[in-house]
């Protein structure tokens, strides 16, 4: 195929899939992006919002396959989330097929593209699959990749092991890592978070930032973490190394797995073994790259050992530094910005192309968002670029001020006007974006729940709501909670007998650490103390169904469906141990009931099955996933969720559960009581529903009309400081006062922290296609609900109008 034919077929294919053909004239950036220039090894595509970057990336891959003849399996295409990877897969398949068919129609021969062989995925999944394919030792061990939920569980389990037994690790963590006031201030602000969460954060930064930036640099000794070298936390670097090793040993010993951070470290170690297998690496959403990922991407270019007969390795990255919003998860926009300099340093030919046309948003929205960006993000924290609207000016950008309840009613009214109603398709797609969409009390103060207020207003207007980050899956009324509670009750029922010493009723369960109370429980005490989260869940559930302190085997609820479950489990608790005893003496067959089988039985009972087609039904599915995660991962114990539940009786006839049953309920309790559970994202339940989303969740999405609220989150400098110190760089004047508050005198930290906060709002506002409305309740009382300073200043001098409902509207236009 000739070059001319390629561009002709490309434009035909675009029309075939309903898109406009590309301008192929000189100066047009698209052909320069798609075409692979043999002289350039690294291409950075700086792409503003709505500029069609994914389309460009896909066509560049196709050019690579068709015109450069790069074998598909030698192309690596990585993006940030599994969902984005799926979308890339679909887009690539679709465009490839359109191309092949357009070419055939035009009488042009296309080689077999073998599109299915292109390696597409998140960086973690690609690391895992490449290691499995090319590193025998990794493959032989059959290491599994843990997802975030499983990692969280294992981190808790690992920490719990330290709490009940591991003195050395616990001391290192508590005294050296979290003990110094300055590190406690950074990792455990205000002591609000659990130790293992803080430790997880420290270990993640250690692996993702410190490891690639401060260690293993040829010819240089490892550099200390700046908290140690400049801020007086002695022994920190070594302590983190030891903890890291212990955590990895735990993972490889027990679940035989690696978490997302460890897999990257493992990959970096082995990258030289794979240099000859890949020719071109494409990275989407490059602005959200963390230092270890950057080391991997850049490592393809600089790691010595690639066969000199192979073509030079290429790297294409695409992203927008102004949309970098994941520093809190360890990403560093500095990676995106330093690429050009690093290429120069290593004499790697580099080029940058800019996609500046915005095809998504109206002129007013583009203009407003650019005014916001220019004012809110300090110039030094942003690469120079211009974003040009392709559409006309469109509707004005509005700021509406009033009481939150009235604003919610206003949104519901406008949604109704746009055709939002249960069961019908709206005329326009709308969404409300908040910094946090949690409907649990807490984020916005003890009782304030702006997302649930909005839900109530939309419910009242007969509008279906979709809010996957409502975080209410873990509430006591959820099926996840109830299922955990009844299993906990089956294994270790909480009762409330009278304490023989005092004569007063006191809660007891076999899992309690108090010997005397545990001895009074109706179940034999386990040989070790599992985590007690499940007992907390059980108590909350009983309070909901049976009333406070109404505990014990004979307790009844007013809900007959709940009683049916209790009766069933009580019978089973009686018959199952007897059946095992009979099996032991050879008078009966081996019982085969497993934990998974028990869950399947419970779910078929009316209490759960009557959920209908609702989120509750899908939360049951979430529970089965949690229960599987809690046990199936314990490979070294050989216990699977499909192994029979073993239980015997003691001399008094009390059930005596196998230790693995205790392990299961301990793990499950840890997960349900300790994790922040998000609802499963059920597409059919989101259909025609009005979305309430977080700013972060809105990334990659677009809506005709957007309402933006809760823009006032305080600037948080801690993530910036963590990046700095784990990179080995000090922070001027960093200290902590007697109450644990952090202070510093480094203006650079403030600039980057301000930029981080502004970028979240910038991402959210650039999701709007036709109309952007900002909502503000000045009397809400919660700091997150305040109005962002820059937005306030952009509207400051604009005239105010009052609506019939008493709300104040200001309008911004070009």
């Amino acid at each position, binding site marked *: 195929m000739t070059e001319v034919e390629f561009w002709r077929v490309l434009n035909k294919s675009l029309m075939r899939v309903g898109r406009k053909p590309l301008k192929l004239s000189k100066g047009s950036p698209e052909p320069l992006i798609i075409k692979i220039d043999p002289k350039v090894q690294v291409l950075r595509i700086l792409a503003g919002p709505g500029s069609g970057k994914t389309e460009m990336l896909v066509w560049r891959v196709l050019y690579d396959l068709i015109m450069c003849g790069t074998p598909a399996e030698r192309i690596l295409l990585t993006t940030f989330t599994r969902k984005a990877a799926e979308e890339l897969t679909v887009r690539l398949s679709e465009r490839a097929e359109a191309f092949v068919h357009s070419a055939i129609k035009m009488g042009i021969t296309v080689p077999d593209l073998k599109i299915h062989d292109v390696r597409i995925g998140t960086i973690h999944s690609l690391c895992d699959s490449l290691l499995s394919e090319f590193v025998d030792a990794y493959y032989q061990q059959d290491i599994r990749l843990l997802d975030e939920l499983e990692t969280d569980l294992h981190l808790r389990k690992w920490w719990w092991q330290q709490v009940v037994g591991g003195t050395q690790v616990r001391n290192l963590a508590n005294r050296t890592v979290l003990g110094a006031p300055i590190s406690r201030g950074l990792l455990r602000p205000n002591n609000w978070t659990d130790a293992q969460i803080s430790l997880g954060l420290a270990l993640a930064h250690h692996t993702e930032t410190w490891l690639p930036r401060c260690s293993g640099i040829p010819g240089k000794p490892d550099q200390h973490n700046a908290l140690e070298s400049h801020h007086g936390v002695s022994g920190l670097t070594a302590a983190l190394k030891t903890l890291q090793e212990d955590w990895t040993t735990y993972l490889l010993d027990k679940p035989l797995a690696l978490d997302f951070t460890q897999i990257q470290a493992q990959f970096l170690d082995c990258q030289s073994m794979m240099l000859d297998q890949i020719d071109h690496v494409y990275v989407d959403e490059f602005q959200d790259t963390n230092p270890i990922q950057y080391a991997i991407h850049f490592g393809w270019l600089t790691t010595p050992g690639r066969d000199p007969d192979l073509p030079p390795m290429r790297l294409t990255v695409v992203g927008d530094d102004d949309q970098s919003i994941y520093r809190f998860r360890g990403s560093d926009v500095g990676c995106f910005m330093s690429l050009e300099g690093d290429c120069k340093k290593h004499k790697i030919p580099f080029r940058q192309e800019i996609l500046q046309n915005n095809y998504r948003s109206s002129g007013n929205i583009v203009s407003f968002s650019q005014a916001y960006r220019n004012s809110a993000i300090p110039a030094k924290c942003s690469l120079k670029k211009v974003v040009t609207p392709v559409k006309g000016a469109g509707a004005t950008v509005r700021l509406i001020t009033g009481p939150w309840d009235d604003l919610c009613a206003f949104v519901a009214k406008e949604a109704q006007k746009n055709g939002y109603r249960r069961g019908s398709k709206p005329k326009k797609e709308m969404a409300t974006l908040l910094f946090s969409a949690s409907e649990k009390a807490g984020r916005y103060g003890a009782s304030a729940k702006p997302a649930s207020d909005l839900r109530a207003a939309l419910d009242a207007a007969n509008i279906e709501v979709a809010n996957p980050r409502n975080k209410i899956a873990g509430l006591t009324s959820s099926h996840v909670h109830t299922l955990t509670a009844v299993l906990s009750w089956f294994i270790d029922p909480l009762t409330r007998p009278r304490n023989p010493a005092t004569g007063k009723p006191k809660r007891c369960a076999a899992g309690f650490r108090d010997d005397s109370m545990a001895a009074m429980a109706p179940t034999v005490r386990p040989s070790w103390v599992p985590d007690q989260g499940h007992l907390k869940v059980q108590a909350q559930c009983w309070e909901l169904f049976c009333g406070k302190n109404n505990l014990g085997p004979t307790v009844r609820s007013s809900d007959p469906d709940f009683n049916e479950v209790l009766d069933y489990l009580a019978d089973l608790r009686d018959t199952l141990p007897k059946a095992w005893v009979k099996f032991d003496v050879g008078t009966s067959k081996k019982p085969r009931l497993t934990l998974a089988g028990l869950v*399947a039985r419970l779910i078929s009972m009316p209490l759960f099955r009557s959920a209908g087609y609702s989120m509750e039904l899908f939360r049951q599915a979430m529970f089965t996933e949690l229960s599987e995660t809690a046990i199936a991962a314990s490979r070294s114990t050989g216990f699977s969720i499909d192994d029979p539940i073993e239980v015997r009786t003691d001399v008094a006839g009390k059930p005596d559960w196998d230790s693995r049953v205790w392990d299961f309920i301990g793990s499950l309790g840890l997960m349900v009581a300790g994790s922040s559970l998000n609802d499963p994202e059920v597409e059919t339940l989101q259909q025609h529903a009005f979305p309430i989303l977080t700013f972060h969740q809105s990334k990659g999405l677009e809506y005709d009309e957007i309402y933006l609220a809760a823009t006032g989150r305080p600037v948080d400098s801690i993530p910036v400081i963590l990046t700095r110190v784990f990179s080995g760089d000090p922070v001027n004047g960093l200290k902590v006062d007697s109450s644990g508050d952090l202070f510093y005198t480094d203006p650079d930290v403030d600039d980057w922290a301000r930029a981080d906060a502004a970028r979240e709002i910038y991402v959210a506002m650039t999701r709007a296609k036709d109309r952007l409305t900002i909502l503000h309740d000045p009397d809400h009382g919660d700091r997150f609900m305040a109005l962002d300073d820059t937005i306030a200043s952009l509207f400051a001098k604009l005239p105010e109008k009052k609506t019939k409902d008493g709300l104040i509207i200001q309008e911004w236009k070009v």
Partner: protein
Amino acid sequence: MSDVYQVSYTGDILGHRRCPRAWLYERHVGLRPYEQVQAMEGNLAHFAMEWLTKHYRKHGTYPKATQLEQEMLKRFSVLRSRGIRSEFAKKAEVVARVVEVVYPQSVSFPKGAAPVIVETGAIDPIVAKCISCALHTEYEIKHVRALPAGHKFSGKKQVLLRGILDLVIQQEDSMEFSRVYEITDPINLTGSVAEKSIKSVSGDIEIWDYKASKPDTPYIHDYVRQLLTYAALYHRNNPEEPLPARCVLAFLRRPKKGTLQDHLIAIPVTQELLDHAESWTMGQITGIGDSISDFIASPAAAKVGTGGCGTVDKELAKQCTACGQRFDCDPYAKGHVGDCDRSRIDKN
């Protein structure tokens, strides 16, 4: 929200055909099945073929039976820890049965004792052929299609059909097939297996699929449709290659008498059949949309199985016995009350 509905051929289309209710609870809602009886053999057999092909490509030789056994034992443990279960009670027996498919003379099953696997014994000639002529193994098909008018996938415009083609062979010389699936109804792609000989010639492209069961399975028509659809999509991806000459179903459960060759069923391919196969598959996808739509209205009323007459058929019932959704499945309970008794603990 993505406008693409993803469908896996085996997991969704075949699963939905067997029992819409089980499919809806397990795949649509995500209530995980707690047992996957028989999945172990299939999984191991696929893994064995993949491992053998990789080994052959790397070393240019076939491994020994005992080497394969070691790989299989390792794989067995991994699968078991992930909840995959076997029809047979013992690990050694399951592994030996898979090794026997590849090395028929290397494996023996002494009565009352553990199976014995020895190093000597040649690789089965059919397996050797699959390995040495492989053009692709585990070829992943990802095909995007517009959803037909009137479909019930609310909000979706396209479907992404996924499938994994076990093996694509380009024959290097002649090979004889003694059983052929003759299609009598090309629209519905039904027919029967005839004892008839056909020969491949050098250069023929063949699409192979391994099945862990025996060739007398009642699901053979569905397997034929699956393979013809795969062949159609493979050909779409590779329009410059000649049309695949045939599809081949390879049933890997070793026959008590005869050879593996007796367990191969060839399906001659024409462009017309491929077109019908694609249309049939799109019809099934529409059916999935209808099931989801009914399920949304009332999950309790989800349709059960394929047997009709208010009860599940015999073949399906073999799988229902391990289905996590059987405890309140009325049609199944009609003939299998004991299986649906929640208080039974001698059965999972």
